[in-house]
Each structure stands twice: as structure tokens, then as C-alpha cells.
């Protein structure tokens, strides 16, 4: 009786590092996740601002000048739009995780909440309230 023929194992492909470049769906997902990067810069700005405020008047003025430079304004504008984009994706996913009310109602409610908080903060910081 002949020996059974040696058979290779099943072929297992490996997921490469660029897996997310292969489909538009994955690219949109990575874009959503990448919104945290400009947000990190903004958080760094805020923390530096707090540190400058308690350090000295000169360092506070330096920080204000730094925040007014065009590239910092540009990066913070990017942060703002990235956060809005992230909020949009989050608000759309939320009704699927906690389906309490019809999805359009929940999405509208979340935007209304965001707008209310933004308005309240603007009024408070603007000295109106």
C-alpha cells in the first residue's frame, strides 16, 4: 500500500498594515478614528494655556500670541470640523446602539443638545449671561 501523499496546510493570508486602504468603507472608518489627532493638538493648546495662565502674565501673553498665529488657527479650524464630522458619525451610530426612539428623532435631539450647549457656552463666555 502506497504512503498517503503529503498535503500542504490550508493557506492563511495575513492582514497587512494597509488593509484599510483597500475599501472606501474602511477609509471612512479610519477618517472617523483619525479625528482624534487634531483634537489632541487642541487639548495640548488648552493645557498649555492653563499652565501659562498660572505661570506669569508674560507667558499668558505669549500663549495668546501663539494661538493667534495663522497655522495654529488653521489647525484648530481643522479640529473643529473634524469634531463636527466625528459628532455626525457618532450621532448616527447612537440610535443603533440604544434604539429607544425612532432614529431621526434621536439624531435631531443630539444635534439640538449640541447646539444648545454651544449657545449656552457662547453666551456665558461672551459675558451676556
Amino acid at each position, binding site marked *: 500500500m502506497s504512503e498517503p501523499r503529503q498535503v500542504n496546510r*490550508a*493557506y492563511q*493570508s495575513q492582514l497587512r498594515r494597509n488593509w484599510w486602504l*483597500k475599501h472606501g*468603507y474602511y477609509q471612512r472608518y479610519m477618517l472617523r478614528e483619525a479625528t482624534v489627532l487634531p483634537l489632541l493638538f487642541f487639548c495640548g493648546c488648552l493645557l498649555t494655556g492653563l499652565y501659562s495662565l498660572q505661570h506669569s502674565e508674560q507667558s499668558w501673553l505669549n500663549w495668546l500670541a501663539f494661538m493667534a498665529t495663522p497655522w495654529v488657527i488653521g489647525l484648530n479650524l481643522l479640529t473643529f470640523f473634524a469634531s463636527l464630522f466625528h459628532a455626525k458619525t457618532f450621532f448616527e451610530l447612537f440610535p443603533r446602539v440604544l434604539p429607544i426612539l425612532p432614529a431621526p428623532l434621536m439624531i435631531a435631539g443630539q444635534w439640538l443638545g449640541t447646539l444648545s450647549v454651544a449657545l449656552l457656552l457662547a453666551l456665558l463666555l461672551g459675558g451676556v449671561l
Partner: protein
Amino acid sequence: MQKTLVIQRYNPEQDHKPHPQHFTVPCDDSTSVLDALLYIQQQLDPTLAFRWSCRMAICGSCGVMVNGIPKLGCKTFLRDYKDDITVEALAHFATEKDLISDMSVFLTHLQAVKPYLINHDTRPQPHQQTPKQLAKYAKFSNCINCGLCYSACPQFGLNPAFLGPAALTLAQRYNLDSRDQGKAQRMPQLNGKNGVWGCTFVGFCSDVCPKQLDPAAAVNQGKVASAADFVIGIFKP
């Protein structure tokens, strides 16, 4: 009309890795990818290996990657593709031969979440359920175990120990069933490092599901259940 299919071939007795092979098949508006594969097997190359059974998107056997997207061969039509169509074995699973994937990892994950009714009441009477109770889990109950969601899930691709969309959806389906008493047995699996928290809500699994189950929603509802289970566990004696 004719179309060219570029099919991934892999013979474990001869090949070290899969390679593409071109086949030209006749087709009309009703020709599915599965029809084309059957034509190739019956008319051009009888050695082509692939799984199929029902031809009506019920059995979940004919899952393949069509132009890189997980699809059921019987539910995908050649008319929807302009150029050559690439057909490969399901991604993230090992390929046994040509378009046949080794689904044993998926089956092990399914088994781990006990996807069946667990009820300690053994009296021979029906367990009645209201339409409202049925509606809680009905949308997650149509899984045909095709495995397309696993091929769409990069988290499963990166970590095959991750229980994955279908298993976690079925766990959620039975946890939401008013007749079931097995939640306590399933939660350790869901709470574990390869459970619901391994999902990052990529959401592609819901997009490719041929039964529109929305597994991404089920898995993330599982996170709410897992968090509640954790909080309840703190206060439980």
C-alpha cells in the same frame, strides 16, 4: 453576452499560495456568480472547488469575495459588474482549496456563545411570547451563518480569537429572548477580551450582511449589556 471571471485557485497539494486564473463565461441578466462558477466547473474545468447548496440565499454556503467584497455567490449578479470580476475565497479564513474556506474558527466562536434557548423549565408546554417580546430580538434572528461578516471585519482579521459579528449577534439575540434563561452563561464570553469590547464599530459587517441583520448594532448593544452586567456585578453580594 460574455464576461471574464478571474478566479483565485489554490491546490494545497501543489501550490504555496493562491494564484489567479481567467475564465470567460456566457451570461445574461439573470446569471449569478454561482451560476458562472457552476458553468466553469461543468464546462471548462471540473477541478474548480467551491461550496454551494440552495441557490436562494438561505443556506449561506456560497460566500466568496467578489471584487474584494464578501458576497453570496447566488445573490450576486454578473450584470452589476462592468469589467472583469475577481472571485476569491472568503477573507480572514484559511483557504482549503480554490474558493473553499476553513470555517472551523467561526463554528468554534458560534459554539462558545451557546446560540440556543436555555430554559430550565422542562414542563411540556409552549413558552408563550407576545409580539412585543418577539420584536426585541426578531431582527437579529435571521442569521444564516454565511460568515460574510467575518470577512468584512478587520478586527477578526487582526485577531482571529475575537468572537466576531455573527457569534456576538446570536448571543445578543438569545439574551433578548424572553424565553431564554442563559444570559448568565453567555456574559463571561461577551465581557471577555475577545468579546463585545473587541469591536470598534467599523460597521462593514452590517453592510455586507445578506439578511440585513445589522450585526454591528447587535454587538454594540452587547456593550451596553456588558457594562450593565459589570455594574450589577459590583453591587451583587
